[in-house]
């Protein structure tokens, strides 16, 4: 395949978009991973061709503040059932949220462990009383 061929270029661009959380491609990649679904299967479940699925990956991810409107816009353009697309995105987002929570818990747990750890014994800094004792000698 010619690397400068348009469809090859778009496929490669779609792949690169899958590495960026701003793009729908990232959402689809996470869905494929967690649900162990192939790209082809996912395209079939959305009811789009393989070529359209690559294009879909290049779309920007729906924003949380206008989720329904954004999903509706994407779904309308490719003739996808909006509910199915929204469900897929929400599924990935909830899994991501849980993963983030776990990561946050791990960080706070490590903080607790650090707090509970015995301090190393070292030379104590001189207290006011010690200083006075020293002066009196």
């Amino acid at each position, binding site marked *: 395949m010619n*690397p400068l061929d348009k469809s090859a270029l778009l496929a*490669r661009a779609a792949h690169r978009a899958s590495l960026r959380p701003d*793009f729908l491609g990232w959402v689809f990649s996470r869905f494929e991973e967690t649900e162990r679904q192939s790209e082809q299967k996912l395209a079939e479940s959305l009811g789009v061709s393989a070529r359209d699925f690559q294009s*879909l990956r290049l*779309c*920007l991810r729906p924003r949380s503040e206008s989720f329904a409107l954004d999903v509706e816009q994407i779904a309308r*353009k490719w003739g996808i059932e909006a509910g199915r697309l929204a469900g897929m995105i929400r599924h990935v987002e909830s899994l991501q949220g849980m993963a983030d929570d776990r990561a946050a818990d791990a960080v706070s747990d490590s903080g607790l462990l650090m707090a509970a750890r015995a301090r190393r014994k070292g030379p104590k800094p001189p207290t006011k009383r010690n200083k006075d004792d020293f002066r009196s000698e």
Partner: protein
Amino acid sequence: MPDPDDAQGLLWLHTRLLNGDRVASEELAELLLERLVCEVAGRFRGTDPQLVSDAVTDALLDYCARPSGFDPSQGIPLSRFLAHAARRNVSNLLRGERRRKTREEKWGESLAEKDVELGASVGNPIQNEAQIQQQRLGGLAQALKDPVDKKIFQLRTQGERRTSEFAKVMGVAHLPKAEQRREVKRAKDRIEKLLQRRKAPRT
């Protein structure tokens, strides 16, 4: 869909992206990706086409994720702005590639030097050991007063094993072989005892 050369059409796509349009990024890629890749590849002849396409794609995706980075009031068309960003990406990727190669070459050279150093460090103890041995033998030879004994000792340290050679030095070459062997053995044993006494002096 606007024409890739239509600056107004591209500006319309830019406005859509700014307004949060979710499908404009795909339209922009469809419209400009191939053209930008060809244009940038022309500027970097001989460069891996995959590297060029990745650089162009990254420029496009970066812009789509943050369209406010492009300011139309500067008077630069969007296509030129993106081409410039893509060329900068190619240069950065090539610079990174060169740095990686230089680092690998330096590492390879330092590894070769280390091999030589390692060889030298292995060789030195052997060399030192040989020198020490030579000095020790020289010191032992000094302990022998008789020049014939010294010569016999030298022959032994040189690895000579033939009885005839020792017999010549001792001046007994005219004697029968069995006699020669006996005389040579006696001389060797005597020298050995002398040296042992020298090595372990009485306390």
